């Protein structure tokens, strides 16, 4: 099954590229400029690792360290302990994981309804969904803070999780995908056979949506892992996510900048690993979202 899934669209894709044919080969200048961009993209990250491996308490010296020192693991250990990164990592995995699963699930359901089902007010509701993408999160923060305090949920993970369980972007993303990727005849055929809506979702929609669900999942995870504003307001040092822990490391009075860099490195590492593994899919997903968005 997996093979048909992969080969069929791949062939179709290749044909399209041929159609778009006449692409010019990049000249040496293009490669030079791209290399510069690539260096600018990667250098700060590489240098983070360099700085994290030094023994200097203050890295602000002239010239700045350009090559690795021997203190990486000590610094990682110190940062881990000082910022409570163990708890923070665990919390971030729970938070980002829950948000990802729920966003993908609910976005697929709503996206399917908007793409393929007929119901009253559907276009109005879709318009509303798109419109709300413009609302800044700052607009919801004060009441949420007050309500969560009332419930006695300050500093608890559900405070961070609940407001992010769905996104308008996710719903719209899935809708755009399913409009084309899910043949309407397939649903009608299942209907004629008397399949209930839940059956159709399970046996037709989910399999068809799987590639887009994977991409949306990755994008949502990156977003949830990096979310900053609400976690900083809702959580304290005792029960932080990674970003809150990094914030306390950076705004605290830690004099050892190598340790701070080690913390920054640790906080980014899970996503960088995910990026090495799934970078291609994430890139594809962003491009796909862009075409259809």
């Amino acid at each position: 099954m997996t093979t048909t899934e992969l080969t069929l669209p791949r062939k179709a894709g290749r044909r399209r590229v041929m159609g778009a044919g006449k692409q010019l080969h990049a000249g040496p200048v293009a490669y030079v400029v791209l290399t510069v961009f690539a260096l600018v993209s990667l250098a700060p990250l590489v240098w983070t690792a360099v700085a994290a491996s030094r023994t200097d308490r203050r890295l602000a010296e002239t010239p700045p360290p350009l090559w690795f020192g021997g203190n990486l693991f000590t610094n990682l250990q110190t940062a881990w302990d000082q910022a409570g990164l163990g708890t923070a990592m665990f919390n971030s995995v729970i938070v980002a994981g829950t948000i990802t699963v729920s966003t993908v699930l609910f976005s697929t359901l709503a996206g399917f309804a908007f793409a393929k089902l007929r119901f009253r007010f559907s276009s109005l509701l879709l318009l509303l969904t798109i419109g709300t993408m413009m609302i800044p999160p700052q607009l919801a923060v004060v009441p949420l803070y007050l309500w969560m305090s009332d419930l006695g949920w300050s500093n608890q993970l559900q405070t961070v999780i609940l407001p992010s369980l769905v996104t308008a972007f996710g719903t719209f993303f899935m809708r755009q995908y399913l409009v084309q990727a899910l043949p309407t005849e397939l649903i009608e055929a299942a209907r004629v056979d008397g399949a209930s809506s839940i059956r159709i979702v399970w046996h037709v929609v989910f399999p068809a949506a799987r590639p887009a669900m994977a991409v949306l999942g990755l994008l949502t995870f990156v977003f949830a892992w990096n979310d900053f504003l609400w976690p900083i307001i809702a959580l304290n040092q005792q029960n932080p996510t990674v970003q809150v822990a990094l914030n306390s490391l950076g705004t605290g009075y830690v004099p050892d900048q190598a340790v701070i860099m080690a913390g920054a490195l640790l906080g980014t590492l899970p996503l960088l690993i995910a990026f090495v593994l799934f970078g291609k899919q994430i890139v594809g997903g962003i491009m796909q979202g862009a075409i259809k968005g």
Partner: protein
Amino acid sequence: MTSSKQALAHPAASADAAPGTPPGAARGAHGRGTPAGPDSWRSRLYRWDMKASPYAFVSPFFILFGAFTLVPLLYTAWYSLHNVQLSALDHQTWAGLDNYKNLWSSDFFWNALKNTLTIGVISTVPQLLAAIGLAHLLNYKLRGSTVWRVVMLTPYATSVAAATLVFTLLYSWDGGMVNWILHFFGVNPINWRESDWGSQFAVSSIVIWRWTGYNALIYLAAMQAIPTDLYESAAIDGANRWQQFRHVTIPQLRPTILFTVVVSTIGATQLFGEPLLFGGVSGSKGGSEHQYQTLGLYMYDQGWIIGNLGKASAIAWSMFLVLLIIAAVNLLLTRRLRKSQ
């Protein structure tokens, strides 16, 4: 290597590729025949299912979104008309428009608004220009094209917190990497944290670094959707590469450009994490002289450092108004541009 990504980008190119279940599967495995007569309970159930299920599928989204975004939005407006202190949450008194009047006469508010606009412009404009150029290069036939794209997108995977901590160190006044590199060009050390434009530039550069690659991919996607015959006919008319870029690519990209301008503007209006962490210990003030205190920071400072949640609510709604005004101006400008062409 390109092809599988293409598959992701154009999955619908082959409708029969609907992955997973072959058309027969649903029928074969679960077929129970067409619903019997019009009045049987099964057919009634079936009709009820047809009617209700769309609402069931969209309702989680609307319930959750309503509860945690739309309703709070209205409550923020309500709280902005009240005096709500962090130290006494249960004691809320009516304040009318006092919070807004307060903002109107506050230098810090106007300063934050000005900073938000300045930093927004100097981070959005270079970012989008660089992204278009980058996308143009990535649109050539490249060796290892996917690797280039992934590398350009790496900063996007870096969190605000991690990126800002690194850049703060790079921008150190004495012996930071940036000043050290500049000294080879005979530039005196710049105080990136204290100087007015220096600090704003530093904060902007973090934004530019994180988002240029992301925007480049969006432009690239749009470029690949431009029909080739447009370029062919332009070439026949004798247009060189630059003229093709100027007269074919850019006009075709206009909707995408508008989209990225709007998205970046929204992002810039909410700018928060970068200036907060760049400021270190006194982050919420946006520097010793509030040089880079944005509206987002100002709201956080007033609400959770000083503890005036009513005022913070008023700032939030002011931000929204600013955003709407910018969006309206954007719209007007694009209408103008379209008419003038």
